[in-house]
């Protein structure tokens, strides 16, 4: 079974993001970059399916040379092959298109990716790839099983108040939610093997017009300082706190 996992390199969620002067991008230098955490679930699931059914796991990313690090993280976990399509998409539509074209050439039985990337949180790419390739898709999956011989799969999704069970035919696109599995640590032998692995690089096919335009990035408004009730005796402070919560904050 050929499994393709779409991955993205994103800034570590613990790093502080600064915005460029022109407001069109974040400052990329000096950030710690990691494999998108939701993509880690997708890689892990691919490795588990490979362990069960045999086959190969290929990881595919769209991005600059620096994104090779994310591919190497996935290789260190145990993925077999890595492909990077080099390019900078203007929006999710272009990203989805470029990844779909690269995926088509690889003809996988199953495409996995995280439900969203934690940098721009658009949650569109997996969906777009499925649409461009005209494949069935299951989003935000918390469990997955496949029957390669029958070209079919089953997935579960958590919805408000219950669980949906979905049946689909292969090939298909499944996006991974937290809880799908517990991603393994890359092993030291895995890291050393990943270092020697050749990454296939090809130019991205961005042959579709962007659907939307990013106008401006702005940081969140700074938080206002809190109110401190310090000069009132206890009971008065309590009454004042209740009044503020009721009248100003309208919380109670």
């Amino acid at each position, binding site marked *: 079974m050929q499994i393709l996992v779409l991955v993205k390199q994103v800034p*570590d969620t*613990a790093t502080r993001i600064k915005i460029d002067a022109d407001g069109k991008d974040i400052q990329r230098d000096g950030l*710690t970059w*990691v494999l998108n955490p939701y993509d880690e679930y997708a890689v892990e699931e691919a490795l588990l399916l490979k362990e069960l059914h045999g086959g190969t796991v290929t990881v595919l990313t769209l991005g600059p040379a620096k994104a090779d*690090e994310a591919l*190497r*993280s996935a290789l*260190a976990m145990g993925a077999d092959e890595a492909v990077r399509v080099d390019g900078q998409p203007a929006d999710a539509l272009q990203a989805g298109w470029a990844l779909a074209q690269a995926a088509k050439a690889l003809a996988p039985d199953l495409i996995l990716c995280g439900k969203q990337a934690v940098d721009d949180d658009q949650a569109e790419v997996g969906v777009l790839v499925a649409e461009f390739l005209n494949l069935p898709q299951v989003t935000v999956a918390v469990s997955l099983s496949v029957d390669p011989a029958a070209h079919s799969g089953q997935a579960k999704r958590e919805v408000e108040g219950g669980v949906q069970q979905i049946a689909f035919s292969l090939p298909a696109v499944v996006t991974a939610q937290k809880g799908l599995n517990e991603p*393994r*640590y*890359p*092993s*030291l*032998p*895995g*890291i*050393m093997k990943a*270092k020697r692995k050749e990454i296939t690089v090809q130019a991205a096919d961005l042959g579709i017009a962007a659907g939307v335009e990013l106008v401006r990035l702005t940081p969140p408004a700074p938080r206002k300082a809190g109110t401190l009730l310090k000069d009132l005796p206890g009971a008065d402070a309590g009454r004042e706190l209740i009044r503020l919560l009721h009248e100003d904050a309208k919380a109670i």
Partner: protein
Amino acid sequence: MPETGPDYLQIERLLTDEERSIRNVVAEFVAAEVAPSIGQHWLDGTFPIGLVAKMGELGIFGPTLPPEYGGAGISDVAYGLIMQELERGDSGLRSFASVQSALSMYAIWRFGSEVQRRRWLPKMAKGQAIGCFGLTEPDAGSDPGAMRTRARRDGSGWVLDGVKRWITNGTLADVAVVWAREEGGAILGFLVERETAGFTAKDVHTKASMRASHTSDLMLDGVKVADEARLPEAKGLGAPLACLTQARFGIACGVVGAAMDCFNEALAYTGQRTAFGHPLAGTQLVQERLVDMLSRLTAAQLTALQLGRLKEAGELRYAQVSLAKRNNTRAALEVARMGRELLGGNGITTEYRAMRHMANLETVDTYEGTYEIHTLIIGRDLTGLDAFSAPAQNSGA
């Protein structure tokens, strides 16, 4: 990504991508699997044995060995960074890994037969077999040549008699590397398996340091082993000392992690804790303390890195290892003590980390060559004069 610093001099830039990746994986492992429960283990005097298999899966044991023996062929600097991150968790965990990798596996790798290597190393790399290293004795610590454990020829095999003390992992070990003097001859190494008749191990239960680690006595009472259990390439005291050099390298790197953890804890604590209306960190006394901690640990960090690079080039001398072990361990101990002090009363509990690290580092300052023994090793190297024996017994004194 968990904290891997401080890195005040951007030493990060001197690392390769693989070295960073390896350090980061171990840092993640320690933050997720060790940090939450290690304080309780320490209090309870238990080693987190459940982590051994996971560490084996990660490939932490014997990682510099070639893949055919279960290793990953990583660089010495990467090995040092693994030790750093393990010791950021706890010295006991790092000690476990040091004894497994640098003492037991190294002894088998360097001095063992091919049969011994194939039998033990892959299993030990996976954490499926645990090793220990029996050199020190109740009456022979700094002077291992004075050991009383004896190896006597018995037909085609050997009989071992003696007692070993302060043996990390002694009661956990499936195989003990035991050093014994052949009657009237040289020091030899033997692989003694746990179930061998006459071999027993017993833990020391009165430690106020290194509590999340097993420290044991090994008793050898007429232990019969075949000649195939002898490490064929080990002839003389130089063999165990070569193993110690490996372990001391790991220690010099490891203690930096404990110091880093104490510094980060103290910096965060004094930034939040207020007294007399100000954060503690806004006072000159506290800033001086924090800067002293950072200076000490940054020097240790650079020393560890250069030690690793020399080792990779095959140029590392044991006296250089002594310098680094001596300096870095004492530096980490002082950093931990300062950190403990900055945390005030809270600093004496295991809710915080400084006291645990500090107590552990008292052991590290003593084991694998005391501070004073390393002084004498470096002193001899500098002057060409051996000051180990008491002056009255030195010729010409």
